[in-house]
């Protein structure tokens, strides 16, 4: 690290005086709403995605509460269907797809590659406005009655049969989709053109590689789903015959188009999480990531293969038998790069100097949960086993293991890791560590029983199951777990907010981490670096051997001063 030549301009000349940073440079509301600063836009995204996440979790809580009894508790079936649909729509389109790229990608890509900002700052701001417009339309749709189609909007139910606010919500998702596309374009241009001198491709932190792969998916996939959803709107409003057999369309065509995006969208949600985990594992094991090239290229491999497996959502949708066979084969291939990542991360910890700070506990939780989430994907990618399990709670459990246990834990790990950089404050580390454990327990209690439910044959999206009361015990377990999980989500809201007011000052590099983002002050100034940094060292350039020797020396020194009689 010492060999990185950077301007230490961010460091305070006079420690007593609050230095100028991106947060305190201006205080007016318009300075936030009209900002071009990627860091401020990231903060806007953080606030708005957190708000939507909160709404989505309320819906999830209501669903879990309702399922404690086989005949429902408080909701009508119609309302229940709207509640689970809004949970899915909000979590997928307004949180998971957006959160990590738009918050951490926005904030840290320029900092990690030593740039002043993203390539197109105004496009970046426009993307937030598109996201908010989409989000607002979706919210208006929910207030005006909601949708009862599930987040998948399968035709012809969505296009011809549902009497809910489908058109409004789909237009909202369509507009929000453009925010994804512009973000992707911005990231790719930035990573290609704005790397600091010496920041070669293979010195890029793996988070940047992950964001690069994600951007490819965003650009290639989002237009397809955007147009598809628009076609559903046209069929609803103008009876354009695309998907409904009554009009002469094909209902299964929708599934092909939808999953052509929505399967890669799964990787849009998980690749950024992989990026964060690589950062956390390397920095808290204090060791260069094992097999850097394999981890980096596995992201690209996932992005590429991810476009060729959409048919595995349709094994029983009446697609041809050999079509299913091919999609299944490719689905098994895409499992391999994920396995490569898991094993490389595990091996990175070997002979490191592991610091079990809260972000690292989240990362370890991620490794354990994502392994299960990934392996249970094999049940679903294998055609024979998928037939019985598809669309049951097994699928629900599987994608929550990947999306919540994977993406959400990584998100929280990243949030705890970069919080001091983003806000300049340290939170209460002890509570944060306990919270990471609460999350892990709550998560498994919520979603593990759902694997068994699915294996027993409990269909997803069922409001009642009074005809199969044998499922109830697992539903109650799951709801108990969701309560614990809810606590795990609520606590950070309090202790992180509290840190803004009474947290200790973080300093530029509270974790003693390696990476350009830690070389500037916390929070960084508007221009990120006062002088363009020049990168001379390798990525994750830790020296675990000498660090360990230093630790041993410190301990020996300490014990000799504390217990001098030991030396008799």
């Amino acid at each position, binding site marked *: 690290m010492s060999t990185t030549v950077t301007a230490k301009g961010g460091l305070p000349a006079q420690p007593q005086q609050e230095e100028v940073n991106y947060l305190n440079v201006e205080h007016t509301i318009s300075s936030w709403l009209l900002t071009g600063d990627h860091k401020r836009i990231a903060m806007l995204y953080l606030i708005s995605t957190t708000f939507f996440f909160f709404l989505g979790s309320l819906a999830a809580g209501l669903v879990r509460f309702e399922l404690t009894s*086989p*005949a*429902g508790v408080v909701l*009508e*079936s119609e309302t229940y*269907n709207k509640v689970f649909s809004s949970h899915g729509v909000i979590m997928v389109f307004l949180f998971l797809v957006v959160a990590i790229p738009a918050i951490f990608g926005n904030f840290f890509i320029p900092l990690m590659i030593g740039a002043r900002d993203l390539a197109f700052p105004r496009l970046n701001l426009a993307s937030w406005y598109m996201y908010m417009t989409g989000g607002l339309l979706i919210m208006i749709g929910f207030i005006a009655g909601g949708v009862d*189609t599930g987040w998948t909007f*399968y035709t012809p*139910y969505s296009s011809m049969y549902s009497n809910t606010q489908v058109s409004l919500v789909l237009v909202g998702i369509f507009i929000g989709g453009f925010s994804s596309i512009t973000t992707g374009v911005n990231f790719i241009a930035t990573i290609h053109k704005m790397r600091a001198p010496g920041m070669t491709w293979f010195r890029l932190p793996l988070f940047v590689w992950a964001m690069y792969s994600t951007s490819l998916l965003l650009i290639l996939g989002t237009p397809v789903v955007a147009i598809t959803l628009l076609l559903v709107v046209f069929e609803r409003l103008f009876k354009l015959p695309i998907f409904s*057999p009554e009009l002469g369309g*094909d*209902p299964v065509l929708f599934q092909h188009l939808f999953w052509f995006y929505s399967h890669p969208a799964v990787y849009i949600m998980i690749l950024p999480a992989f990026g964060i985990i690589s950062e956390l594992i390397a920095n808290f*094991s*204090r060791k*260069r990531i094992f097999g*850097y090239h394999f981890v980096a290229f596995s992201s690209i491999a996932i992005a590429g293969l991810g476009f060729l497996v959409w048919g595995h959502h349709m094994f*029983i949708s009446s697609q041809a*038998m050999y079509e*299913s066979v091919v999609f299944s084969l490719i689905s*098994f291939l895409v*499992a*391999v790069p994920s*396995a*490569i990542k898991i*094993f*490389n991360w*595990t*091996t990175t*910890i*070997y002979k*490191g*100097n*592991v610091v079990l700070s809260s972000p690292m506990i989240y990362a*370890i939780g991620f490794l*354990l949960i994502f*392994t299960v989430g990934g*392996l*249970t994907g*094999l*049940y679903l990618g*294998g*055609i*024979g*086993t998928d*037939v*019985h399990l598809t*669309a049951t709670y097994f699928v629900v459990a599987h994608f929550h293991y990947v999306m919540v246990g994977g993406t959400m834990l990584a998100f929280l790990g990243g949030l705890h890791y970069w919080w001091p950089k983003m806000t300049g404050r340290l939170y209460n580390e002890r509570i944060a560590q306990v919270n990471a454990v609460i999350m892990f327990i709550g998560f498994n209690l919520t979603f593990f029983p759902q694997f*068994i439910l699915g*294996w*027993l*044959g409990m*269909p*997803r999206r*069922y409001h009642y199951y*009074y*005809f199969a*009361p044998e499922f109830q015990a697992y539903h109650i377990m799951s709801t108990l777990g969701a309560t614990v999980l809810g606590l795990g989500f609520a606590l950070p809201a309090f202790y992180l907010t509290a840190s803004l007011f009474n947290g200790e000052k973080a300093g530029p590099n509270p974790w003693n981490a390696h990476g350009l983002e830690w070389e500037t002050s916390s929070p960084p100034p508007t221009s990120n670096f006062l002088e363009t940094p020049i990168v001379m060292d390798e990525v994750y350039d830790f020296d*675990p051997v000498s660090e360990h020797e230093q*630790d*041993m020396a410190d301990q020996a020194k300490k014990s000799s001063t504390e217990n001098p009689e030991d030396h008799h």
Partner: protein
Amino acid sequence: MQFFNFPLSPPSASNFSAEYDVLFYVLTGLTLFFSLIVGVAVIFFAVRYRKGSKADRSRPLYENLFLELTWTIVPLVLGLIMFYFGTSLYIKMRTPPRNATEIYVIGKQWMWHIEHGNGVRENNTLHVPVGQPVKLTMISQDVLHAFYIPAFRVQEHVVPGRYTQLWFTATKAGEYHLFCNMYCGTQHSEMGGKVVAMEPKEFAEWMANGGQSVAPMSMEQAGAKIYSKIGCNNCHGAEDTLHAPSLYGIYGKRRVFADGTSLIADEEYLRSSILRPYDHITQGYGQTMPVYEGQLTEEDVINLTAYIKVLGTTTANTPTSNVNRSSAASAVSGNNNPTSLATNAMQANTPDPDATPTRRNGSPAVGAIAAEGKNR
């Protein structure tokens, strides 16, 4: 398998389920194995190499082609093996044998309508024989549905505008869940019922009886059965006896009573004389007949009356012929209880099963009543 209140596996009752379960458990074994390897390694390394521990850090590893190839090739090979077995099972699932019995399924919001080859129809219940391959040809009348029988490990979408197929051979008699497993609107969760797998002999009888476990009877036949069951024929014979008058040809005749009054023997009179015989004692007889009030249901009385009307005529011995009509009705009510045959026979006049409510039949368990109340 069951562990207290926690069932651990679904019933296994088709030709696919044994092979399916082997695959499932092998995958579960692999999942446990690799999760444990990763979990134990991560936690062991994190503790052993925690900062400041004394463990040896010399010669750290950063890249190793051999390791990378190992954990690329081993999962790949295992994956391909699982792919092979999964695909071979799937191809079997998609290749119905030629001798399969064909049954047709129509899905609509929110019910399953099923039609057997001989015209027997049923709603939300599918009867199949054990040991005989069955091929379902399915289509939807509105939105997407999915026909899902967990105990058989089979499932397929039911699509509007095109036929899809599903086949299986039931291997164990019993009742199993039938679910719609493709979200189809408000009452999606209640679109289902049961699959009844029957021994071939019982199934053949069931089919011959037009979809009922007992052959349907006309009202007269049902009445005749009760007539002999409760022993009417012991006293009321073909001729008047010392104990009781004959009932042959009684309907529509004037009856003169012990007190000198008289009445025409209409349905009202027959009913009251069966239930409360002492109201009107026929001239020349004493109070010897038992009182049947509280002993017979109204349905029994209606059937008895129908029989009495035709006593002594040839109709009393004519077997019924409206098998298919009444089967449709019984499929609608889903009620195979012999005591309600009269109801079935009456429903035979409205053979359109579509006209009936789409409620799930089968026995509603906990809270079903609450749910019914709510949906009204």
